[in-house]
Each structure stands twice: as structure tokens, then as C-alpha cells.
């Protein structure tokens, strides 16, 4: 297939519905051939931003630039984008063939060429046996593939996906994730993918854009977001179960890191120090998977309230000293049981620190690999 690439630039884009500001100023650069995932909680404006890029909604202010040309006033088709809707939006009265052929019919493509293209796309998506059926007769996964087929048949520069997998069951979702990643590789097109599922974001993206309340919270590679979240929101959003937050008091800051007191114990966390930290109350973040049973630079007792045994690991939920629930992911079949106090601990090197404004102090760590498969298994 022709691989025309699309480079997208958003410049201070905002969007209001009446008095309500939904997108509050987004500036973003997306490179040719990149797979970018917009992730964020429901209602944070992901769909709205995607619809602005598509040309289904106008930006209230700001510019959308594709391949160097401002496209604010261009119709979607002239922007060279194709979109896959969350609800698939298939034409129920048309066959699979006609659904996929729709964009080509609009272009008035000659019949022979059209048939060849649709059949090629159907083959890639394993729909060649279904071409004469109506969408109503297809399974969820097949409908999804028809919707994708309708997008790729036009060979757009940029693909937009709005939560394309959210209506599928867990197993099918995992399969489609792999298929989409493969498709991105084969088509080498720019893809922008919206999801509220951080596992999809972590496993598929070249870069992730974390949105929160109409702002970009952080942009980065998956491992960057995991290891060096820039703020408490991203730290809590990426990772499952959620990162634990504990109050900590800063006692010293030096070139090696910041020393804090947490749970009555003192540790030195290797992060970039900042002026005026000493004496302040900070938030210490520690991921459940970095908690160990009985050992660590900081140790304390918790009483498990729920224990989930997943085989490969054990997840323990407990109430810690703070008001927030505390969770730990222990390897294998850990020796813990409900209502029996256990001593847990974690190491200073695994800690994150956030200042009073929830901004992270930059960690000094490599972006070492994390086990995505394990992460994915958690969410399924």
C-alpha cells in the first residue's frame, strides 16, 4: 500500500461548549508514522480533541496543522484523515462490501478498481468470507474490523481511533490490540488512538499523551510515564493497581537526593533536589509492584482486608496509616492472609516524590523495561 505519512501539529487548541471549557489549551506535535495514544479518565476531553483533529468539531481557538498546512477550515476528507468510531458506525442496510466501499463510492472510483481494493482490504482483515453479509450478522470483533476496513481502504495519512476496543470482551481486546499494532507497522501511517484504558496505551503507543481535565498532563514514551511521571495524576493513572501515596516530610536535600521521613523512618530518595523543600510536607509514591514482604528501606505493618491470588502474583489491599487504601503486588503465592498483620517494605530507589503542588521531583533512574504482559494480565 501507498504510505503517505502525516505530520500533525496542534497549536494552543481550545474548545468550549457554551460556557463550559472542555479543552483548555493543547499544544502537541505528532510525527510521521507515529502511534500516539490519548489516554485519560472519562470526560477529560479525549473524544472532543479527536473530533477537532478529524474536523467533526471546530476548535474554539487554536490551529490544527497537517503537513505544514493549516486545516482548521478543511473538511475531514480533505485533511487526509480517516476515523474509526467507538460505536463502529456501520451502515446497517449495506453489506460488508458496501460498507468498506463507501468512501470509494463517494470518490466515484471505477468499479473494477474499487472491487480490487475492497477485496484486498477484506483479505487483510479476514473478512473475505463475510463480504455479502450485513453488519447485524457479524460478531463484535468482525464489526470492528469492518469499521477499520472502511478507514484503511481510503489510504489516509492519519488514522483516528476513538476507543475502538471498548465494546469488545477482554480476550478479543487483547487480540485486536496485537492486530492493530501489526497494522500500524504494515501501513506505516500516523495513528492517533484514544482510550481510557492505560494498558492499551502502555502496550500500543510510541508515545502517550495523558489528558486530564482538558489539559495535557504529560507526553512521553510509555516507560517514561511509568518511571518518571511528572505529576501525581500521571503517577496514579499509569499502573495497575494504582500507585500508593503516603505523606512524607522533607528533612534534607542534597546532590544525592532528598531525605524524607515517612512512617517514622528516614530514607534518602534519589531525585533532583529543589530549593525550599526542607520542612515541607511532600507526597511519597510507591507502586504496588515495588512492595516487598518483610524487607525494604522502610518497613511497616499493614492488616490486609482483601487478598487476590492471581497465580503469578498476589495482590493485597490493606488500610495503611493514611486515609487512602494501600495495595501491594507480591510475587507468587505470598504468605499473607486477611486480618493477619504482615510487615511490608519498599526501597528508597523505587520511590517517587511529589511537592505540595503535586509536581514530581525528577527521579534518577533508567527507563528499564517493565513486564507489559503482566501488566496486561492485571487488567483483563
Amino acid at each position, binding site marked *: 500500500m501507498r504510505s503517505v505519512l502525516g505530520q500533525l501539529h496542534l497549536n494552543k487548541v481550545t474548545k468550549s461548549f457554551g460556557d463550559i471549557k472542555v479543552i483548555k489549551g493543547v499544544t502537541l506535535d505528532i510525527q510521521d508514522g507515529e502511534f500516539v495514544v490519548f489516554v485519560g479518565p472519562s470526560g477529560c476531553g479525549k473524544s472532543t480533541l479527536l473530533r477537532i483533529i*478529524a*474536523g*467533526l468539531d471546530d476548535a474554539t481557538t487554536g490551529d490544527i496543522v497537517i503537513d505544514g498546512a493549516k486545516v482548521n477550515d478543511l*473538511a*475531514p*476528507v480533505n485533511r487526509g*484523515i*480517516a*476515523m474509526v*468510531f467507538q*460505536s*463502529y*458506525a*456501520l*451502515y*446497517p*442496510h449495506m453489506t460488508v462490501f458496501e460498507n468498506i466501499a*463507501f*468512501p470509494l*463510492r*463517494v*470518490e466515484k472510483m471505477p468499479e473494477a478498481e474499487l472491487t480490487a481494493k475492497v477485496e484486498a482490504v477484506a483479505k487483510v482483515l479476514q473478512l473475505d468470507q463475510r463480504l455479502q453479509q*450485513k*453488519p*447485524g*450478522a*457479524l460478531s*463484535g470483533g468482525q*464489526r470492528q474490523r469492518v469499521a477499520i476496513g*472502511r478507514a484503511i481502504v*481510503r489510504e489516509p495519512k492519519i488514522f483516528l481511533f476513538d476507543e475502538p476496543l471498548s*465494546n469488545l470482551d477482554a480476550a478479543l481486546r487483547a487480540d485486536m490490540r496485537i492486530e492493530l499494532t501489526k497494522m500500524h507497522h504494515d501501513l506505516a501511517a500516523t495513528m492517533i488512538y484514544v482510550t481510557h484504558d492505560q494498558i492499551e496505551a502502555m502496550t500500543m503507543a510510541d508515545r502517550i499523551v495523558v489528558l486530564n481535565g482538558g489539559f495535557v498532563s504529560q507526553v512521553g514514551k510509555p516507560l517514561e510515564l511509568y518511571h518518571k511521571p511528572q505529576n501525581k495524576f500521571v503517577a496514579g493513572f499509569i499502573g495497575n493497581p494504582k500507585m500508593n501515596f503516603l505523606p512524607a516530610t522533607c528533612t534534607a536535600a542534597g546532590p544525592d537526593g532528598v531525605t524524607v521521613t515517612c512512617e517514622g523512618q528516614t530514607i534518602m530518595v534519589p531525585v533532583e533536589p529543589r530549593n525550599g523543600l526542607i520542612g515541607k510536607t511532600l507526597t511519597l509514591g510507591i507502586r504496588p509492584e515495588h512492595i516487598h514482604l518483610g524487607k525494604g528501606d522502610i518497613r511497616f505493618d499493614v492488616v490486609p482486608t482483601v487478598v487476590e491470588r492471581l497465580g503469578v502474583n498476589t495482590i493485597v489491599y490493606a488500610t495503611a496509616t493514611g486515609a487512602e487504601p494501600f495495595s501491594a503486588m507480591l510475587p507468587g503465592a505470598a504468605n499473607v492472609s486477611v486480618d493477619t498483620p504482615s510487615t511490608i517494605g519498599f526501597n528508597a530507589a523505587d520511590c517517587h516524590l511529589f511537592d505540595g503542588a503535586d509536581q514530581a521531583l525528577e527521579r534518577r533512574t533508567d527507563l528499564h523495561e517493565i513486564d507489559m504482559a503482566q501488566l496486561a494480565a492485571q487488567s483483563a
Partner: protein
Amino acid sequence: MSTSTPMINRYKWYEIIGIYCGIALFLIFVLSPFVEGFLVSLKPLSRLFSSPYRFWPEHGSFAAYSTMWESVPGFARYVFNSLFISGVATVVVLMLVVPAAYAFARFRFPGRGPLLGAFLAVNMFSGAVLIIPLFRLMRSMGVLNTYWAMIVPGVAFLIPTAIWLLRTYMLRIPKELEEAAYVDGASRLYTFRRVILPLAMPGITVVAITTFINAYSQQFIYALTFNSKTDYMPLPIGLFAYFGRQEVIWNELMAASFVGIAPAMIVIFFLQRHLVSGLTAGAVK
């Protein structure tokens, strides 16, 4: 494999008897005038008022169904007029209402709400209330004593209900379908033709049927007031021809009534085949 009834649809035997009794009572109430009308059409005129009155006809025959054509030679013409007026009215209503209903369902424009409300308000007046202003209007348009005299007011009073019906139906067509078509480069008109119209077909059929029936039944008031040409008279007026100078030819009148509505029934029978449900299955989700 036996077809099992879902739990929620299972009834005890006495509940079933009760349900059927209810249905029977209702049907008797609704259908008995028709049954009696039909039986009257089978009776010889001389026996109609014989006492004691007999419900079942003695010496019943279909003779009235052939003599009715001779008593009122123009009858076929009246039936045709009725069909023609209702048919044209239905076509005109559909041509106006389909795009209008789509606009009311999809576009936001100033005055949309008040306009829809106004349509409802218009429906509260029957044509009869407005007969005098309508007469002046028809006269100044110069359409008195033409088919248009019966078609135009009919259309005007049929449009509001039709718009409401069809708008409601069109609101159920997922918006994403149009957005998908728009993203794929289709124009509004193309989308309307290829996506909206086919999906709205059951709704359009319902509107066509109700419009046709209403046009059929309401035309007589316009015919009485705006038309005096016998050639253009519709069925209901035509039936008056069976009211003779001395006596009403009841059996032929009844026969003519049944013959008169038969074509309409046939039209409706064919229209309702478009009433397929579940047309949007598989569109979204």
C-alpha cells in the same frame, strides 16, 4: 428442540382465557358495525326492515354488489377520485415532510422548537373550523372546483402529524452514521440519499400509511365545501348518491362502502411490507 417461552411471558390457563376474553370483547365492539354492514349488503332491500329484525340474512346474495354499479353509474369514478386525491396528497406530503423531518431532527436553527410547537397547535384545529377562511383562500387561488381544492387543504393539515412522526423516527438513527459518512467525504445530500433514506424507510412507510388513511377519511369535508363538480367528487360524497328520493338503497350503500375502501386496503397492504423492524441492527455497538 422445543421453543421455550421466556419466564416473563408465561401465563396460567385462567390468565390466558381472561386475555382472550378481553381481546374478543374489544374486537366485537370494534368489528360488529362492519359485520352488520356486510350482512346488510347481502340482504335484499325488501327484507331489510322486515320485523322481527333478523341479524342473519334470509335469501342473502351478492346481488347488491352488481346492482350498485347500475344505480350509481359514476361510482367507479368516485372511487378513483378518492384514491387519486389521497395518493397525490400522500406523495406531496412525503416530498415535503421527509426533508423537513430530517431538518427538524438534525439541524439546530432558530425557531425550531416554536415551529414544532406551532405544528402541534395547528393540529388542534380541524379543517372544519377554518372552512370559511380556507374557502376564501381557495377562491383567490382560483382552485375551487378542481382536484387541488381537495388536495391542498388536505396536505396542509396532514403535514404537522407527519413531521412529528417522522422526526421522532429519524432521531433514532445514530448520529455517528452521518459523521462517519462526512469523514469519508460524503456530502449531506449523498448521505441523506444513501444512508438516511434507506434507514428511515419504515418510518416513512408509517407516515405514508397514516397520511393516506387520513387523506382518505378527511377529504369529504373539503369536497363538500370546495368542490361542486360531480366528476371530481370523492367516494364519501359518491355514497350520497345511494340516498334516493324516497328511500335509501341501504344494501347497495353498504356494498359500495366495502368496495370503496377495498383499493385503499390493497394499497396499505403493499405499503406495510416495508415495515420491517430492526433495520438499524449492527449499526452501533
